[in-house]
């Protein structure tokens, strides 16, 4: 067992895990606590959404959850660096494209330059200009 760093939607979690067939598997309990995704009798679930899982043993073995199989089932993409014990997950291109097409502006929280956490929803009921810039 080793420590695995999981980056999910930009947030970073430290989980127990181990290499498995060129990918990584992580402790399913810690994964559920970090990402909200949990394997239940009805499927792979998060909040009200459950995805049917045909081959449970491909996803979960000895309470360890395979990240590549999770990504495949959940419509996400995974990048895994087995040697360095780091994995990252994001929506697949198709999933993200569908979300963009809803025109819902997803909420987010980021630190401001003084370290204070600020959310898009702090400015609800107002028009907002979201400006992306950089120092480079």
């Amino acid at each position, binding site marked *: 067992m080793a420590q695995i760093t999981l980056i999910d939607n930009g947030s970073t979690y430290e989980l127990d895990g181990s290499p498995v067939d060129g990918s990584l598997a992580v402790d399913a309990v810690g994964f559920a606590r970090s990402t909200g995704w949990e394997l239940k009798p009805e499927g792979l679930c998060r909040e009200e959404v459950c995805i049917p899982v045909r081959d449970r043993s491909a996803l979960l073995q000895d309470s360890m959850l395979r990240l590549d199989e999770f990504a495949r089932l959940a419509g996400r993409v995974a990048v895994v660096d087995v040697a*360095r014990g780091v994995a990252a*997950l994001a929506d697949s*291109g198709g999933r993200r494209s569908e979300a963009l097409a809803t*025109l819902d502006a997803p909420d987010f929280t980021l630190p401001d*330059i003084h370290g204070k956490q600020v959310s*898009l929803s702090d400015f609800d009921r107002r028009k907002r*200009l979201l*400006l992306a810039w950089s120092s*480079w």
Partner: protein
Amino acid sequence: MALDADADAVREWATQEQLTFPVLVDRQHVVAELYGFTNVPASVWIDENRKVVRPADTAMGDDRFRAFTNVDSSIHHNLLRRWVVDGVRDLDDSGVRANQMLPDDDTQRARLHRRIGIVLGDRGDDAGRAHHLREAERLAPMDWTIVRGNMPLFGDDPFGEKFFEFAGRWAEAGSPGYPLGTGREQPEA
């Protein structure tokens, strides 16, 4: 919202003026992914009901780079003023959808490699950082937030030789980017 791995570099710029709005630091490009930003400066308009009423698009603050970018900043400013003051949108919902840049799986993977690179860099693993940042560039070779955003991380001048090399490659590829291209002018022949 600054797409910068280096929060100190953001502070250096953002504290030069007394700003009336929050300046956020998106080291992991989370908001870039959520809203489809591939270059800066760019903006998205979000209305009172948290709906996107104008997709990610070039938004220059002024005309200081106009000779290079061929973008007249006043066009976007005027559209923005009309929406804020008069409540008039220049695009309806179908116009917003028609002008979104939609990511494919490789774009998403590129963002993930960049994130891993930043996390490894924070741990002092420079070789790991370099490997993943280069992978990100390989998967999204025309994304400015990745290719140009990497330049300072590799010690390259983002206004120097590498920048002009990249800008040349990008122009040869047909300048892929925000479909609206508000304010873009035809370069003089």
